[in-house]
């Protein structure tokens, strides 16, 4: 029987396999940040252990860092202590780190691919659920907890049961104005926030092959929001072109060896998946969330649903609670939901393509009165690229704030937060209660919808302007 992409990457990394025990899987790249690592380094110290492969580990500061005044010390003493702790741990254990002020600093899931460190067929982990992003390269990449971070630091392996595989077939072409973000929100609405549990989602089909690497990363990034361990996409010419020439990409004869190996990763024609779903790309329109989990979403052209329309009592109760928290009434057209704050950024939509898409909508336009918009590039290099293209000027002229790189308002660990009751259109990945600040209300949207909503002051698509 043929094997899937995920099976092939898994099999190539099994260090040890024994009856009744999980496989011991080798990890090619371990990404670290300040929030989920301090207790892991402490554990090493307490046990008198070292980091087995600092040369396969990379750290950066992203979750806590301010996105303004970064030349000054971090104002919040608790955040500053956590960042200082990461720096000290990396120094003690010899782990490379890109700190605030470095041109390679940024959101961990943006800088890994940008440096060429993420390549097809690799295993990649990080103490962060959005590690699934890197599956866009045909890597098996997944989030882990702090105990597992410690385990990887000490052994460069993880004991794991094989994941099941789900083919997500997306045929046809995405219509104009419909992005990878709309696509993944539609996928999550289709399979549910728990539908992917235990699975690696392999995104397949014409619509996926037609996506850029940035869009593929958006798609894989939110696989976790469907409950999946990981998302993956077969590497192809688009992948190889993206990796080629980056600082850590293979060079010379190594490049040729690598590409030959990468081409062999594609799922076999007779590979069998444990589950399969199909989505018709042609029928998709801009998608937004109305509730407090990413599965509570609907086409922007629709309405806030009536909880009584759910047959399942658990879902009905969840919808009632969500609408109560969100301050929404069933039947309200989503285009009539007013917005206070727009956040453009995050590991989901903080790449150059995302900033270009939003800037194209904002060019020559102004933010609606009373709307605040934060533009937070995913990395320092994304910021510089945008500035060289003049995107920063478009955002500033429109009335948006052009800020420094970091996770920022995606999770509100730094000063960028919603006030209680404020409502955001956000290109991030989670609309959980209080995620962007206690009492804040989040609608997840694409960069295009974020920009159009900033101009109209209500959830909007670019086609709603003028």
């Amino acid at each position, binding site marked *: 029987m043929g094997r899937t992409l995920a099976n092939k990457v898994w099999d190539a990394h099994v*260090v*040890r396999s024994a009856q*009744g*025990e999980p496989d*011991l899987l*080798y990890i090619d790249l371990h990404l670290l940040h300040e*929030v*989920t690592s301090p*207790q892991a380094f402490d*554990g090493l110290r307490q046990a008198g252990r070292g980091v087995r492969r*600092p*040369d*396969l*580990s990379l750290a950066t500061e992203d*979750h806590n860092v301010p996105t303004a005044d970064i030349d000054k010390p971090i104002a*919040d003493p*608790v955040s500053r*202590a*956590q960042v200082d702790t990461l720096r000290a741990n990396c120094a003690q254990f*010899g782990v490379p780190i890109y700190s605030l002020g470095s041109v390679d600093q940024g959101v961990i899931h943006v800088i890994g691919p940008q440096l060429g460190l993420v*390549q097809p067929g*690799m295993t990649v982990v990080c*103490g*962060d*659920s959005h590690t699934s992003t890197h599956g866009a390269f045909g890597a098996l990449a997944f989030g*882990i*907890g*702090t*105990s597992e971070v410690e*385990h990887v630091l*000490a*052994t*460069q*392996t993880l*004991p794991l*049961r094989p994941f099941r595989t789900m083919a997500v077939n997306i045929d046809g072409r995405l219509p104009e104005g419909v992005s990878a973000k709309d696509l993944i929100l539609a996928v999550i609405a289709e399979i549910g*926030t*728990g539908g992917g*549990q235990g699975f690696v989602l392999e995104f397949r089909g014409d619509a996926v092959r037609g996506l850029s690497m940035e869009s593929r990363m958006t798609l894989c990034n939110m696989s*976790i929001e469907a*409950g999946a*361990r990981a998302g993956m996409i077969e590497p192809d010419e688009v992948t190889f072109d993206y990796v080629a020439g980056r600082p*850590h990409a*293979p060079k010379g004869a*190594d490049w040729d*060896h*690598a590409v030959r*190996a990468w081409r062999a990763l594609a799922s076999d024609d007779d590979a069998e998946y444990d589950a399969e779903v199909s989505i018709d790309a042609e029928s998709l329109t801009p998608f937004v969330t109305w509730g407090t*989990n990413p599965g509570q979403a609907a086409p922007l052209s629709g309405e806030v649903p009536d909880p009584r329309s759910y047959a399942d009592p*658990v879902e009905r*109760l*969840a919808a009632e609670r969500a609408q109560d928290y969100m301050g929404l009434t069933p039947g309200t057209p989503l285009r009539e939901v007013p917005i206070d704050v727009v956040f453009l950024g995050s590991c989901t939509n903080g790449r150059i393509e995302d900033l270009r898409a939003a800037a194209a909508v904002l060019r020559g336009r102004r933010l609606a009165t009373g709307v605040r918009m934060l533009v937070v590039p995913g990395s320092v290099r994304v910021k510089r690229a945008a500035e060289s293209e003049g995107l920063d000027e478009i955002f500033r002229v429109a009335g948006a704030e052009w800020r420094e790189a970091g996770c920022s308002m995606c*999770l*509100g660990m730094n000063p960028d937060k919603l006030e209680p009751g404020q409502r955001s259109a956000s290109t991030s990945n*989670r609309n*959980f*209660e*209080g*995620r962007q600040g*206690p009492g804040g209300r989040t609608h997840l949207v694409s960069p295009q919808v974020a920009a159009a909503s900033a101009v109209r002051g209500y959830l909007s698509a670019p086609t709603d302007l003028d």
Partner: protein
Amino acid sequence: MEKFERHTGVAAPLRASNVDTDQICPAEFLKRITRTGYHDALFFQWRQQEDFVLNHEAFSQASVLVAGPDFGTGSSREHAVWALRDYGFRAVISSRFADIFRGNAGKAGLLTAQVDHGVVERLWALLEAEPGAEVTVDLHRMRVVAKGVDEPFYLDDYVRWRLLEGLDDVAVTLRHSDTIAAFEDRRPAFLPRTG
């Protein structure tokens, strides 16, 4: 890790699905660099509401949580498990757990007992009719037991063994250091290094 064999305690009914780790332990509390002391973080926002289940006197000493499906979704933060443990919980019963949360729980001595949702409904009914009622989770027999309830639960065999033995994962793996080194010798030369 503390061993887990059998636990009996007051159970609290949490009638909610998709209880994400941002609710269990909000981001503000993730700035700490310790592994303990998160009892104040647990359900911080929900505890501000008077009618939240853990604010009821009958459930103030609860050590078993009975929750709706998809418990622990979202962020990979192990802090969510630490907060539950520090508050006093030894076990969570639900029909579905998010994968990363389930993994984290198994490493930090919190039992995730997976049962059919019908069992959750029966436990909810019992705990609401008789607040303060106790529930037993027996890891040897793999059963959830309460008044009128005696049902099997699911837990991965290997995780069960580690919980019963209270084993440190890293020590187990380090026994295979030579096998890891041999694997490293076989890795393709083109793979990247960070430094």
